[in-house]
């Protein structure tokens, strides 16, 4: 299992320079990817714009959206933006797409919430072809375009993974919940007769430091996930706050067959990144630059 780190762009109030510095340092650190998350009606950064900026200051790390709310985007434009980032980064883009969970995002974008599933299906059916044809975007690093992941927990979602994508990206939670979702993704993959296995990505949240930092992290999660009602409290309770918790979390995901685990910060402070890097090195999870 590879381990990546999230950019702090999902936290409202994060300074732009911090994001750039974060990307630069992560590229030098033991991480294999930089992740970004998406929502519209919130004080976060637009994820694809962030990855374009990150592409400019990184050489090595994968640049992953875990996820972008696909149906909010026009298909042709999304194909072009993604191909551009892929070309700018030398083929490091991993495009995770999902329908998202908030109606207000759709309302703000002027897109009918009820058609979100259908829109995502159409989008998935066209993206790869648009990249392969190459008539409306720069040439992607590989002819097939960037790696495509799909998020979400609906039955339809797993069928989409097997039909259109390269893998599945899990929304978060304990390893057991991931294991169940991973089974569904693999079952769909096997039924579709796709060769090999689906790529399985997952994510978690961390806050490292004293009680104040932990509380700030939990506070962010409660705020970010307020739309889930009392589950926000549970998500906040799952915050990883010690090397021990991180080690166990990683082990659980690894045993469940996760290919790439992206750990997201909850406090916009570069010290968080440095501490996470130290923890990974301490656990012998120094990302190997050459042989992966």
């Amino acid at each position, binding site marked *: 299992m590879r381990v990546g780190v999230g950019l702090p762009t999902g936290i409202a109030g994060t300074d732009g320079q911090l994001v750039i510095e974060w990307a630069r340092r992560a590229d030098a650190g033991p991480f294999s990817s930089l992740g970004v998350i998406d929502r519209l009606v919130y004080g976060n950064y637009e994820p694809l714009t962030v990855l374009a900026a990150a592409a400019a200051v990184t050489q090595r790390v994968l640049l992953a959206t875990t996820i972008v709310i696909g149906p909010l985007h026009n298909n042709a434009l999304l194909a072009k933006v993604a191909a551009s980032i892929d070309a700018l980064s030398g083929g490091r883009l991993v495009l995770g797409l999902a329908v998202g969970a908030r109606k207000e995002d759709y309302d703000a974008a002027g897109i009918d919430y009820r058609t979100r599933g259908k829109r995502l299906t159409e989008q998935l059916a066209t993206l790869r072809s648009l990249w392969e044809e190459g008539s409306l975007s720069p040439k992607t690093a590989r002819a*097939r375009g960037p790696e495509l992941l799909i998020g979400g927990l609906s039955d339809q979602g797993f*069928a989409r993974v097997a039909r259109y994508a390269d893998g599945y990206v899990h929304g978060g939670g304990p390893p057991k919940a991931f294991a169940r979702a991973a089974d569904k993704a693999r*079952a769909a993959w096997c*039924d579709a007769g796709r*060769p*090999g296995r689906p790529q399985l990505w997952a994510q978690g949240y961390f806050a490292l430091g004293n009680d104040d930092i932990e509380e700030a992290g939990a506070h962010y999660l409660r705020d970010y996930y307020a739309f889930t009602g*009392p589950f926000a409290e549970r998500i906040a309770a799952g915050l990883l706050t010690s090397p021990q918790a991180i080690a166990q979390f990683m082990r659980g995901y690894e045993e469940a067959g996760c290919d790439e685990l992206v750990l997201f910060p909850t406090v916009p402070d570069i010290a968080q990144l440095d501490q996470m890097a130290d923890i990974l090195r301490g656990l012998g999870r120094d990302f190997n630059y050459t042989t992966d």
Partner: protein
Amino acid sequence: MKIIILGAGPAGLYAGLLIKKASPSHDITIIERNAADVTYGWGVVFSDRTLASFQRADYRSYEQITNRFVIWDAIDVHYREATIRCGGHVIASIARKDLLNILQRRCKEVGINLVFKQEIHDLADLGSYDLLIAADGVNSIVRKIYANHFKSRVEPGKARYIWLGAQKVLDAFTFIFRENEHGLFQVHAYPSSGTTSTFIVECDEATWLNAGLDSANEEQSLAYCHQLFAKDLGGAPLLSNNSRWINFPTLKTESWHYQNIVLLGDAVHTAHFSIGSGTKLAMEDAIALATALERQPNLEDALNEYELERKPVVEIFQKAAQVSQEYFETIKRYLGLEPMQFTFQLLTRSGRISYDDLRLRDPRFGDAVDRWFGQRAGKRRTSFAPPPMFTPIELRTLTLANRIVSSPGAQETCEQDGTANDEYLTRIKNCGLSGAGLVMSGPVAVSAEGRITPNCAGMYDTRYITAWAKIVRAIHDKTTAKIAIQLNHAGRRGATQSRAEGLDRPLRQGSWPLISASALPYTPHSQVPREMSRSDREIVHNDFVRAASIAERAGVDLLQLNFAHGYLLASFLSPLTNLRCDEYGGDLEGRMRFPLEVFDAVRDVWPTNKPLSVALSVTDYARGGTGVEDAVIYARLLKKHGCDILEVKAGQTTIESEPAYGRGFLTQLSEQVRNEANIPTMVGGYLTTSNEVNTILAAGRADLCIMDIPLRNG
């Protein structure tokens, strides 16, 4: 806070008790329409996990409840002339009356006001309150008054049942199955106090009507049951308590609270009695509500938290209860099973208990299952037997060493003329070396036009015989496995790019014309196929026959025809994809005509001593498509025409018809088709452990299992 609780059942009493304990300043009144000592039902069961939560919630009542417990560990199944016992299941029960007495006493101790014999028709009669907790049962008056807000749905079960008691001591949870001239009756009985047992009698509607029980009064019903189960009761009297024959109502409610009113227990959800969780869920609701009220200062937040906490848990139980309920409603399907398999199927019906679980609980029962399975397969009595998955199976004159099937899947490594290359050979050989009893190829095209992708394996010219004979020899010489080839015509799913980049992506260049039952493209981006003409049918017919004779000459052991996943023959079977007006469309018989003609022709050229299989999508998972009932008819027909084993698949008829994926997602379908059409089945559906396979085999849900694990020698 002034709290009124309607209903003094376990849910209402326990909620009152826990809320009052947490905040003694609350003013709590519980109103019950019956008298304090009137109760319905005999005994309620709890598992050890539920007890642990009682222990944390209120130790005193926990102690008193456990003091009153009858605890036992065996389940007895009386079926035909046999009684089979399986031990190691720790179950505890208490008479409902005792439970209520304990809770009533505890409520009084903590200062709750209990009012009995007061019927409420209008909520205005309650006066003012800050919170109303409606624990007034499945016919909740509160839920009905605010029906528009709670939005509940009651679905009556298909079976009739009556809740009785028996003056008989039982030492096990007891299932009794008895058939008479009216039909089949089953009993769910378990100890409820030191001297009496709960005795629930259940049957389907037709049996109930045949027996004239619709017009029987309480006394007559009792007499009927007493006579039917005379042998089992040994003369012990049956007891009734206002008992009536009813259909179990499954209640689901969209919203569990409205303003300052909240629903609890049976008032908001029910789950079929056969999983024995009604009282448990009700009391757990009470714990969750009390906890939420303690944690959240704001009432609305607390009620939200309670609902969000409990709803998913209850849904899981309702799902398991539904599986169990459907099992008992369709129990006739299993009457062909021998007692041991019948028992194993019954114990593992809801999917929560597996072969390994039963072995752990009762090793001797596990051995007995293995022995039975081995004897039946080997047709001789032995004292020792391997687990079901390592038991041989015979199909015509072919003997497979075990029940595991290994497949390299849809291989796309062949040359463009369909010739298998070295990589193909290596992968198929590795499947044989895995230890599986049967190696099953992925789809092999019967013609160049029938390929899915340009690099699909093919079997469409006698010059392929040598290459396939080499593959067959590699399996036969180097492994103990036998080899099966699946013959396929891709139909409207043909001429696509490699599956590495996704499914059903049409070829950009080098495509070829497609054919199908009707001129409907598979995806909006797919080529529109040609509706098959008479000559197309003749060509395809001959292609299958030719491929079968090549397979025979190459030494293939088992042949399978692909009637699944929306490929050519499948396109005839589904009304979604077959819009033909000629004799090859229309009703089920018409839609089956062409696939069956192909089957018959292949059966004719395929040696009679060799088995022939069909892979079938047993449901389209789509409105207007075929369902399992149709598949059962197809399966019976195929069996009659000489099909030896059916591979159960599902969906992919259209791009919208996809199953709810998960571990073993095809097992239930296989079980239904196997037992209703009485045909051996093989099933995959992402099975990765021996436990899953042994459970499926021992329960008679399939005869061969396709395992999907990374091969060690790959």
